[in-house]
């Protein structure tokens, strides 16, 4: 008989594995065994905590002490100091970027304080490859409750009460979608989970699948019961091998336990789940293209209606939801729709997981209640802008979203406010930009993405986005024409109105929103041939300021002899000769050269 007195949680999410968590784990297990502590200390592999940038992460319970950036050589101290003597290893604690204070406890770190982790509650806290760990924290109780105490109608009613809206982008009320599929005529119905996650920078669905796969399975099974389906598919992109592996293990374990398969928990409900690996084209995330891809056809959208709820997989009624949407279901059923509806805003209920990237101190995954402000997400949770730079814009909603300026930082983050501001929730990608980012360049970046991902089926999307991209390229090169802005606006309107699927219908959004809030930057590029952020290489110019001490270092560094000046005298750059390589700026010891 043994008594476990400590749990050491090691993050085994994709981020931490790539920063070395497997090596840390091996070293830890070895040293525990050497000291004879392996019988009283348990090592648990978990999914992502969302703080990947600080990985590999190690958390020790019962104290809840949180170690960051742990390397193999740190293991000795963790074992000998912490696990043997109970002394916290100060140097491995997380340091708050503002106060530079070291914070021992997981729950006291700013990054987690303002979050509300419901969907991610187990991520990073249970071993996703062991079903018992999920059951220990109440897993599959909601499915049991639905099958034992509820009818399909009451499950749907509960979903409607919750107010949950789809987390895949559009925000369609999930309860209503379930009801349509339940009422649709058909002997056979399907449940499909959209785990394509094509937005650049987004990784929330991957983290949920890697860190808590059973939650998604449970949500799908409850959906199957509610709509009368006995078969489900998870469509995952093949670039997510770890998510696929963990999902496979989870499905197998659930089947062995009688939580999936025939006659689940002694009821007459049967439900089977299959995994379909997608090739990872962005357009395959669009629901009709995704269904075509599962059927083995080329992933191209088709006009709707008929909606999948009426005619989906192989023509049968099909309910398709996003990973995060399904992950919300178990707690809605176990805690009730009313409880869920008490979180969030009037028309956006519950929480949303965001992937924070770009120029902020804490990149990572954050789950927040709807209605929180953008400022709280970026400054309180995200820890503010890197290197003390100034905030410029936040891009939200992926390639179909928009850029919001400083003035809108106090905007409530919910479906409707975002749409009103010209952005959208999307799947939850959040890219923060600082003063050195050029907004024309950002629009160009997203349009480059959509142009190359357009499936080519309809002309406005295929040709139109290309023409828009050409115009943007011209502007960033300093060759913009007076009527370019008007042309961009007109094309955007036409493409939005005449494209077949959501990709084309939203592709111009980044251009429109940057034009709305950062029009002056476009104008500076076009009229003054200047890039205010100093980001467009073709428009940058280098100037020597009064701070010049005449040391002559820049002159030596210049590859084309564009700089002239006497020793101890003010130097000047001949703009006609300068090739804008930036070498002089890097060399000047007195920061006398500026780029603008």
């Amino acid at each position, binding site marked *: 008989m043994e008594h476990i*007195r*400590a749990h050491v*949680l090691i993050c085994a999410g994709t981020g931490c594995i790539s920063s070395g968590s497997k090596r840390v784990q091996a070293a830890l297990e070895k040293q525990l065994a050497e000291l004879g502590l392996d019988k009283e200390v348990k090592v648990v592999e978990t999914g992502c905590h969302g703080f990947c940038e600080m990985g590999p992460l190690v958390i020790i319970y019962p104290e809840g002490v949180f170690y960051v950036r742990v390397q193999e050589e740190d293991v000795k101290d963790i074992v000998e100091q912490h696990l043997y*003597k109970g002394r916290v290893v100060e140097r491995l604690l997380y340091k708050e970027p503002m106060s530079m204070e070291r914070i021992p406890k997981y729950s006291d770190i700013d990054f987690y304080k303002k979050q509300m982790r419901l969907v991610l509650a187990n991520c990073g806290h249970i071993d996703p490859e062991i079903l*018992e760990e999920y*059951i*220990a924290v109440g897993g599959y109780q909601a499915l*049991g409750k639905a099958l034992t105490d509820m009818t399909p109608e009451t499950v749907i009613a509960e979903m409607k009460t919750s107010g949950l809206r789809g987390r895949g982008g559009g925000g369609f009320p999930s309860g209503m979608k379930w009801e349509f599929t339940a009422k649709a005529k058909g002997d056979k119905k399907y449940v499909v989970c959209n785990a394509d996650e094509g937005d650049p920078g987004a990784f929330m669905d991957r983290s949920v699948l890697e860190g808590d796969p059973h939650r998604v399975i449970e949500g799908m099974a409850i959906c199957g019961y509610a709509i009368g389906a006995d078969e489900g598919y998870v469509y995952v992109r093949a670039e997510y091998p770890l998510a696929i592996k963990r999902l496979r293990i989870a499905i197998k374990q659930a089947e062995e336990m009688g*939580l999936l398969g025939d006659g689940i928990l*002694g009821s007459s409900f049967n439900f089977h789940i299959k995994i379909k690996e997608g090739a990872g084209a962005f357009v395959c995330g669009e629901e009709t293209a995704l269904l075509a891809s599962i059927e083995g056809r080329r992933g191209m959208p088709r006009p709707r209606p008929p909606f999948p709820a009426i005619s989906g997989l192989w023509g049968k009624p099909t309910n398709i939801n996003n990973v995060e949407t399904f992950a919300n279901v178990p707690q809605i059923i176990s805690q009730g729709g009313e409880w869920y509806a008490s979180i969030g805003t009037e028309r956006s209920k519950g929480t949303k997981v965001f992937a924070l990237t770009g120029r902020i101190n804490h990149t990572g995954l954050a789950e927040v209640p709807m209605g929180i402000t953008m400022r709280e997400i970026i400054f309180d949770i995200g820890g503010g802008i890197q290197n003390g730079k100034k905030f410029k814009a936040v891009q939200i909603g992926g390639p179909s979203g928009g850029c919001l300026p400083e003035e809108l930082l106090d905007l409530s983050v919910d479906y409707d406010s975002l749409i009103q501001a010209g952005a959208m929730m999307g799947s939850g990608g959040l890219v923060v930009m600082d003063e050195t980012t050029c907004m024309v360049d950002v629009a160009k970046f997203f349009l480059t993405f959509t142009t190359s991902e357009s499936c080519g089926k309809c002309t406005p999307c295929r040709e139109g986005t290309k023409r828009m991209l050409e115009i943007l390229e011209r502007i960033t090169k300093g060759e913009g024409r007076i009527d370019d802005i008007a042309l961009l606006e007109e094309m955007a309107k036409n493409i939005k109105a005449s494209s077949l699927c959501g990709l084309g219908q939203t592709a111009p959004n980044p251009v429109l929103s940057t034009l709305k809030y950062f029009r002056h930057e476009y104008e500076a590029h076009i009229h003054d041939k200047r890039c205010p952020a100093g980001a467009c290489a073709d428009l940058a110019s280098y100037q020597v300021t009064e701070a010049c001490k005449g040391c002559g270092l820049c002159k030596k560094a210049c590859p084309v002899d564009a700089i002239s000046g006497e020793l101890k005298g003010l130097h000047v750059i001949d703009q006609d000769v300068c090739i804008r390589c930036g070498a002089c700026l890097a060399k000047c010891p007195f920061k006398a050269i500026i780029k603008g």
Partner: protein
Amino acid sequence: MKSLEDLKRLQQQVKAKTSLRHAAGTQVIVGMGTCGIAAGAREVMSAILNEIAKRNLEDVTVRQTGCIGMCEKEVLVDVVRVGQPRITYGRVTAENVPTIVAEHVVNGRIVEELVVAKIEE
């Protein structure tokens, strides 16, 4: 599993697997400062873990602490029951452990002859 009842029973059985991560329950804290270890804190800790395992106590967490400045009274063991003062036992040996666990941890009766301090928290 054949029913929701089975599932609930299984949850009860495996709950302890993650309960350490949600804290609560009684805490036993062993002083593992340098002189604590020299005085045999490690043996006392092992004895505590054994005793808890033998009695299959689920809601007990065992932790360590460093020097608290009563080195001459080592080995020091604290017991904290929810809602009660923190009791510090001194000069604890492995032989004392079954008594402390049986009396205090399980039944809530303080083993007065070993107490060196009481801290209201």
